[in-house]
């Protein structure tokens, strides 16, 4: 039903009244200083904790991804469509050299190298162990990946018949630098492949699975021994921003042969993606709990406010202020609490995060034995929280919504307030 307008002067813009609402709201906060500081302190504390948590997440995810991918997996790989699920030697891409050159030209790609891989029996005398023979371009590999830097002894693939193998594999085989080893497997065409190599380098990455199974050799030697010609099993890429891998992926797909499959690190290292996701979710749950607790304290504070000022609100309704305007005024009070809390929380967050970013937090020094666990998860040794826009804005943003909502719940009671009964309330 449409209301008929009363023959009354037009009520002015809300802006004029809005200014006095802010004044009233701000001054009302200081009628109960302790309560205001407690509410604002709660908001600030939540912003501090959530902000620091986000800063740690922002600071750790990038290095975590970089740490995990820089060992040897890379940010993306271009493979034969069947190779990832079924790494048979025949699942190789033809024209490997030209494919590497083509991929290098893609904007956003900062490096590319080809690999020819084969599962083989690595033997020395009577001893044989299964391993992954990885044919690599030594120069590019050393420039792009860190596995070469985990050299424990010897050199990294100095010659065309060099072998660079994991420390556990070397121990199992009982080989030392200078020893000769033979890798036996099946060639692409079905023949027996035999590759004779000299142990020129032994690495120790800390990753048990790599140290026990990987044997790197020059790519040409592997291609020749395993009848691969110029074929490669994967072209491994590094890109300028690994967190944009999914965005860049379609561009790479458009530049490679139609029968090639492009996988980004999310697919190549699903455990890394899941680890990050799990960490983010647990952080979000903690933040949600914290915000809920603080919101309850704000609700409590505003229940007290509405209860104590019932007569004042009754008077305001009586002199012609609409209940919704009173709710608006209380919402401004809540926003003022948030402003105080956000100022406290952001300042504290900056004060905590900046020094930690410089010195880093070495969890191994805090929790004994955690280094090995972190190494398995490929988490960096030193955690450095990052003072990002997300860390500074996300928590205050969520708390603003939480604070306003928390204040709104009791404030809405004003809409049901009967002015005559409200005016009879004791102060």
């Amino acid at each position: 039903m449409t209301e008929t307008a009363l023959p009354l002067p037009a009520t002015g813009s809300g802006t004029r009244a809005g200014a006095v609402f802010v004044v009233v709201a701000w001054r009302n906060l200081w009628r109960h200083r302790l309560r205001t500081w407690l509410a604002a302190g709660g908001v600030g504390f939540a912003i501090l904790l959530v902000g620091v948590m986000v800063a740690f997440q922002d600071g750790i995810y990038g290095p975590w991804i970089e740490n995990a991918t820089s060992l040897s997996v890379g940010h993306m790989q271009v493979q034969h469509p069947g190779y990832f699920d079924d790494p048979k030697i025949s699942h190789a891409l033809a024209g490997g050299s030209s494919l590497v050159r083509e991929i290098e030209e893609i904007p956003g790609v900062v490096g590319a190298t080809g690999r020819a891989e084969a599962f083989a029996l690595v033997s020395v005398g009577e001893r044989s162990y299964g391993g992954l023979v990885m044919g690599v371009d030594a120069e590019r590999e050393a420039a792009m990946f860190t596995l070469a830097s985990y050299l424990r002894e010897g050199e990294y693939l100095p010659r065309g018949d060099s072998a660079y193998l994991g420390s556990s594999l070397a121990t199992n085989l009982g080989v030392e630098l200078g020893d000769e080893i033979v890798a036996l497997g099946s060639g692409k065409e079905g023949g027996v492949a035999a590759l004779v190599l000299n142990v020129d380098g032994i690495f120790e990455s800390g990753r048990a699975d790599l140290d026990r199974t990987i044997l790197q050799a020059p790519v040409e030697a592997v291609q020749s021994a395993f009848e691969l010609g110029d074929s490669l099993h994967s072209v491994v890429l590094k890109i300028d921003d690994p967190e944009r891998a999914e965005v860049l992926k379609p561009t790479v797909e458009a530049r490679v042969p139609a029968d090639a499959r492009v996988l980004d690190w999310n697919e190549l290292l699903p455990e890394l993606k899941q680890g990050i996701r799990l960490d983010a979710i647990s952080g979000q749950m903690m933040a949600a709990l914290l915000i809920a607790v603080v919101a309850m304290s704000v609700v409590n504070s505003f229940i007290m406010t509405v209860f104590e000022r019932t007569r004042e609100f009754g008077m305001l309704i009586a002199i012609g202020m609409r209940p919704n305007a009173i709710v608006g005024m209380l919402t401004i009070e809540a926003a003022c609490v948030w402003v105080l809390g956000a100022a406290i929380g952001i300042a504290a967050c900056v004060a905590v995060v900046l020094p930690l970013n410089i010195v880093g937090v070495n969890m191994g020094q805090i929790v004994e034995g955690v280094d090995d666990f972190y190494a398995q998860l490929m988490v960096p040794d030193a955690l450095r929280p990052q003072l990002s826009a997300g860390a500074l804005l996300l928590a205050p943003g969520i708390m603003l919504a939480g604070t306003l909502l928390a204040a709104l719940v009791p404030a809405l009671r004003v809409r049901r307030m009967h002015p005559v009964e409200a005016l009879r309330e004791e102060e």
Partner: protein
Amino acid sequence: MPNPVVTCRDVSRVYEGDGVPVHALRGVDFELEAGEWVSVAGPSGSGKSTLLHVIGGLDQPTEGTVTVDNVEVTALSEAQLSDLRLHKIGFVFQAYNLIPVLSALENVEFIMQLQGVAGGERRQRAIDALDALGLADLADRRPGEMSGGQQQRVAIARAIVTNPVLLLADEPSANLDTATTEELLDVLRRLNRERGVTILTATHDPMVMSYTTRQVNLRDGHVVAP
């Protein structure tokens, strides 16, 4: 003949108290002419405050109609009632009811801010209203820094600054001593005589009744002969 500022026709108000109906007003017929100062008198529970609340649009009658300045109050929505109170009616309460965090001047300005009156005009009208009530020197004081009488005069300044057609005062002297009550009543008399402000006062204070131009007696919700 001019229309009355207030007309009540057969107004009844029944409250449901613990399942037992309480008849606060029983078929009240009442008129208030422009420029009058009428006191509604009667003992506690006679329905004085209820009548003021019904006329002021703070409460709705169970039966009957109320008209203020040719607007039928009983037919208005909540929002329209808010506008009516804001623009046509001034309220003075027993307990002053000023906004504690605002100064006297800001309290008087506040209601004009709700009306949307521009800053300069608003400030000047508020100063004039306080000045008229002898409060110019107390403009910057907050309610907690003023006596009861001073607060009540600020409340009157707030009520008249919008030039309402009707000033409703519910037991305005209840919290004041005799000397302060006399000062307050002098102020109201001056407003009534010099500015023609129409005033309706609910009271059981004989001193207040002695100042008014007419008296309406209520007993058990009925208007009775004096």
